[in-house]
């Protein structure tokens, strides 16, 4: 990961610089017009969140069942990043909703489950920070719970009647507007790259913290 860090960083910087051009050139949606362009940062925020949550959940499972300490460092890093991307999605959504729906927030299935997932992630981080000895295993269980819960968040718009658009909007976008899909794919890839960069930085920090703790323990001995 360290070898590809700089090329990834350069690529992500170029993509984020070019993303506004892609977004500006994407066609307008017929009913929402300009405000619909939040879509190109809102959906990729959730793509980043789901990617981070998947890594967090798999790494937590590896730590729980195999006792892999490095997996635990990856899990806590990915969990933190998932909360950051979730925060992006939860703030850009209401800004879009205010114009499109006329309200900042609606307690429907998608919005409520998304908020609950963010609270699970915040809970995960709080357990890691203040849980004391054994918090790693407790939080790993919480991460698995969060990963499973994310399926309900994603499918909530298809299973229940909500104000939020269904998953089919994104899945069939290529059929109705290839230009919109290419702009979304471009921004989605930029956010996944951002996730990988943040993960690399955060895992580096977790390793440094572990090394420092070992030094402290060695000093006490």
């Amino acid at each position, binding site marked *: 990961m360290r070898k590809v860090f700089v090329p990834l960083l350069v690529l992500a910087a170029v993509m984020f610089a070019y993303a*506004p051009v892609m977004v500006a050139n994407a066609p307008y949606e017929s009913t929402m*017009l*300009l*405000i619909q*362009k*939040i879509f190109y*940062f*809102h959906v990729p*925020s959730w793509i980043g969140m789901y990617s981070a949550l998947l890594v967090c959940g798999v790494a937590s499972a590896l730590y729980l069942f195999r006792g892999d300490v490095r997996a635990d460092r990856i899990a806590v890093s990915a969990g933190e*990043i998932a909360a*950051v991307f979730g*925060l*992006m999605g939860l*703030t*850009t959504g209401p*800004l*879009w909703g*205010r*114009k499109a729906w006329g309200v900042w927030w609606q307690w429907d299935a998608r919005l409520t489950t998304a908020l609950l997932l963010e609270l699970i992630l915040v809970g995960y981080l709080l357990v890691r920070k203040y849980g004391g000895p054994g918090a790693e295993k407790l939080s790993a269980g919480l991460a698995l719970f969060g990963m499973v819960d994310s399926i309900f968040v994603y499918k909530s718009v298809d299973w229940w009647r909500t104000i939020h658009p269904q998953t089919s909007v994104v899945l069939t976008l290529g059929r109705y507007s290839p230009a919109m899909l290419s702009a979304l794919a471009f921004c989605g890839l930029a956010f996944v790259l*951002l996730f990988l960069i*943040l993960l690399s*930085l*955060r895992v*580096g*920090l977790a390793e*440094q*913290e572990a*090394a*420092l703790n070992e*030094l*402290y323990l060695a*000093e006490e001995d």
Partner: protein
Amino acid sequence: MGKFATLICVYLFTVDLFAQAPPGQGQFLPVEQLPPTEQLPAAPLLIVAYAIVWVIAMAYIWSIWRRLGKVEHDMRQLEKRQSQRTR
């Protein structure tokens, strides 16, 4: 006390007279036909949404950088203590 209550009643009645609710809307009104005061501009919301994404990402990178700096500082302090002990 009675005068005070009467004054409040008169005040509320006067306010109510001037603050009558607008007549109810009986049918669908396309958003383009709304008066300008009722229309919400999209551009500021869009700009704020993009700015928030950038602010959150930059704040997180800054928090990692700050924590990394603190860990490195603690390591240097620890190494200095250890080297002083070995002398």
